[in-house]
């Protein structure tokens, strides 16, 4: 049972809440960081060197706010669908 034993490889009964937590972490990385970074930096790389650039009559840098708001709405929706579940320490065999 100590450190370094092969017991690491033995199968365990996984807590489904913690499996979901990992999926949520991946969603956070993909949507909250990767996609957001790609969208945001696409704007920066396209217009960043032109101080006078306007998009529909509005300075380009204002669109960083619009991208942020759009992603904020997406992330709020993603959060809405996060499963609400009990936080008891163990599913079986332990006290709350």
């Amino acid at each position, binding site marked *: *049972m*100590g*450190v*370094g*034993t092969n017991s*690491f*490889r033995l199968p*365990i*009964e*996984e*807590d*489904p*809440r*913690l499996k*979901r*937590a*990992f999926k*949520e*972490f991946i969603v*956070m990385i993909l949507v*909250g*960081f990767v996609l*957001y*970074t790609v969208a*945001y*930096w696409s704007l*920066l790389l396209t*217009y*960043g*060197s032109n*101080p*006078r650039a*306007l998009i529909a*009559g*509005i*300075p380009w*840098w*204002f669109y*960083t*706010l619009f*991208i*942020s*708001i759009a*992603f*904020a709405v997406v*992330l*709020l929706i*993603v*959060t809405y669908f*996060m*499963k*609400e*579940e009990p*936080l*008891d*320490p*163990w*599913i079986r*065999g*332990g006290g709350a």
Partner: protein
Amino acid sequence: MSGVITPELRLSVALVFSVYLALITILGLYARRVLGKTAIDRFVEEFYVAGRGLGAAVVAFIIAAGLCSVGTFIGGPGLAWFLGMPWAALMGLQIFMNFYVLYGMGKKLGIVARRIGAVSLGDVLYERYDRSKLVAILYAIVVAVFLIPYCSVQFVGSARVFEVMTGWPYIVALALAGIITVFYATVGGLRGVGLVLLLQGALMTLCYALLIAGVWGRALSDFGSLAAINEALIKVAGEEWMNFFRLPVAWVFSQWIIFNLGLIALPHGLMGALAYKSVKAMKRAIYIGIPIVTFWTYGIWVAFIGKIYFPQLPVPDHINPMLAMTMLPAGLGGLVFAGIISAAQSTIATMVLVVSSALLRHIYSFVKPTATPAELKRVTMLLTLLVGALAFILALTSPPALEFIIILAIGGTMAALFWPIIFGLYWRRANKYGAIASMIVGLATYSIDKLKILPISSVLFGGSDPVIPGLVFSLIAFLIATYLTPPPSRRAIQLFWGATPPED
């Protein structure tokens, strides 16, 4: 700057500040009463994580206000005014902090913390890495070395604004802002800090609401359109100042990483994930946090626009107080000031608790494992007081480069803790050897580069901030050390992934 301070403004600042201090003192005393009723064997958990019973608004502000700090209200505006577009166009960098901390890490941390009785991130790392004392001690060292100076910077920043806006001596400003903060953190623990945070969060929001109304209202009235404001900025500050690519892209992108994804490695932000009472409260904390932080962060644009009205300032960090004093009615300047002080105090209070919990659990408890609950209670409060006092004493030296210390503190913490936290929570194979190697290599790389002993970031990473080589090398060290050494114990796997408790 002192030339524009009117007696009305000084009076309003003094009045608002007095009311503010009285209110947070009352809230601190109330929290002390709640804490006083706690059973002594549950005192430490109640003190550091408020019995894991915090509601949505408090959790939202522990993360948002704790992580935003004076950087969002003083340092960041100063940089936007000074650097121009390379900083102003990056405002989206930190706005999803509540989502990252709670959606990405919150459920796992919340469940695991309840399993092991964790009151700090250090407890989580200690249990995950097979009760390695070295991991825990390294964590305590990183937290103490980087977060105490970070705390003192918050003291200094708020005292300087106070000094400028009231004309009172620096030491008086420092004492008033500091003593009250240490008081309510020491007597109220996280519950006291959380209660005060509700007031502080409201004041921080009001601060930017007033500045946005005053500055954007004035600019739109003077120039008529956003395009005309853009032209005015080019005319006053020059095309170069408005060019996003004026600074090396590698450096700017590394700031994006530090203040974006890097925030999940900051222990004072993760406190919220240890203390929420239910998943429902956690989700609501995200609903509250995202719009609030977006509002505060894009509020920094007032300093960017402020360049039109104040093209020259002796100190860039003075821009927000200057705008408050000149573009708002005298009575409202005091509210802006209270908002700025709130930003500093909220961060100080959460950091003091993080450092004190690290010292209690990973230094004191190792030295004296037989301490009774009564002793732990006494030491908890004493350590909190000592950490606050130490940050206060450091602030007396009034260091000149505040932003440098902030970036140093965040970067050092990230370089040391990022991979041990992420891999500890989500990679089963990660073991204590990997975590130890990662912490040591991350810290060493970051320090060597930051102190310019070896120019790693400029030679290998195109001029990025030293935190990038720190992260890359600590990742490599983690992977190599992990694969060269035995896997973690089944106990750790069971605690962090299993459905049932470990047999022992």
